[in-house]
């Protein structure tokens, strides 16, 4: 009977240690798995965004000073990903365009019209194009 009791306390202690170890280890393991998967997800996004930004390349093909409050800017996508033009600056001031944004496919070109900038013939203006991924391109054009 005594030897039997001895065995029970040993089993209980082993079970207790095992349960304690598991109860500590499993949450830690789950927490670290979650942490790593979150880390992977956010860094994956950053990597992916940076790669897309790197693959983006575009030029301003032509700027046509059509009439007062109408400057037409032609943008060409020479990169490996589709671009979205979200802002046009004239002389470092953001301007209203029609349409407000423009998606341009690979090897495609399209135009945006600046509708709120008056200009003087013979003057030089700096036109800046900004894409959704944060790339920008500035060039000088004479009206």
């Amino acid at each position, binding site marked *: 009977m005594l*030897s*039997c009791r*001895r*065995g029970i306390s*040993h*089993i209980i202690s*082993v079970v207790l*240690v*095992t349960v304690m*170890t*598991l109860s500590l*280890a499993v949450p830690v*393991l789950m927490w*670290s*798995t979650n942490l*790593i998967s979150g*880390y*992977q997800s956010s*860094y*994956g996004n950053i*990597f992916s965004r*940076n*790669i897309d930004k*790197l*693959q983006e*390349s*575009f*030029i301003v*093909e*032509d700027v*046509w000073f059509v009439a007062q409050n109408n400057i*037409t800017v*032609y943008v*060409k996508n*020479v990169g*490996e990903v589709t671009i979205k033009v979200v802002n046009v600056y004239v002389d470092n001031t953001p301007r209203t365009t029609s349409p407000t944004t423009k998606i341009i496919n690979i*090897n495609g*070109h399209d135009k945006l019209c600046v509708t709120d900038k008056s200009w*003087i*013939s*013979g*003057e*030089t203006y*700096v036109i800046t194009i900004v894409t959704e991924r944060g790339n920008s391109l500035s060039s*000088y054009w*004479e009206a």
Partner: protein
Amino acid sequence: MLKNSKKYNKGISSVIGTVIFVSILLLIVTLVGWMINEFNTYNTASQKRSEFDWEKESEEIVITKIEIDDEINSFFLTIRNKGGVSAQIDTIWLLTSSMHYSYSTYIMLNPGSVVLYTFTPTDVTLDPTGNYSVKVVTTRGNIVSVHYPMIIPGEGVGSGEPSINVGPLRLEIVYEQLKYTSETQHSPIPGWKVPPGERLIFWVKITNTGNDVLKLLRQSLFYAIEYQSGMSGSAQKAWSFFIVDPDSTYPPGGVIAYNEIVNPYYLYPNPDGDWVAGGPPVTVKFSSQYMGQTGANQFPAQGGYYLISIGLYFEYQGDEMGINIPFVAIRTIGL
């Protein structure tokens, strides 16, 4: 039984420990593997971008000749690839004074090759006496433009560079680059013949060929000395047209006094350090009879011939300097 249980329990901790260790190891290996893969993808993209940039830099297309055949309504473009890589032109632009047109095309140019390309614009009836600009765009995004009729330095009337380079500044001696506005002429037109007895603003294109930003100061002026046949007595009078605000339009009301603190002319250098190309040209306006004031000056009503010098005072790299440039000769309308 107790002995067996003891033996059995002995192995459990090792198994659990191993499982936990292997799990942690797997996590770390997966993470490192994933990171290596991401870095590799990024490096590949970065390498491809560098290659693209290098190829774009190496591309050098030149349009050496442009002619019009009005019978077939076409341009003949002689295009040469001077660069070290093959280039493909996929767009041609035609710019007239009233419209801009773009046309898709396919012209493949191997390194060193010359291609005679017939470009037939469908929207324009070409006039051999007209003025056109043609731009070709490559798939890598380089643009080359040419003007019709083509001006080739060293041929025709005059030769050499159509510009004056002095210190960090360049003034273009090109018909379109000197302009004026007056009381009756409100949009700028070429200023080689200006109206007598009318207040004027002269518009001069100036480029910074230095390597630092340059600010023009209020002492700058457009200085006209009258000349006549014989050049004697009181004929040699002088007229000063001092620098005015960049937003000035036409006299008299549109002349704004130059304030070098509030709204100065800044001439920026070329962002890539290419002094031959220079920075963006800036139109500098001259009009005021007195320094830093609004009163526009004018030539006398009887008209005359004038030798023009430009005096430019400027601040460059923290120092104030001044240069005097013999510029052009102009006259008044009617003489």
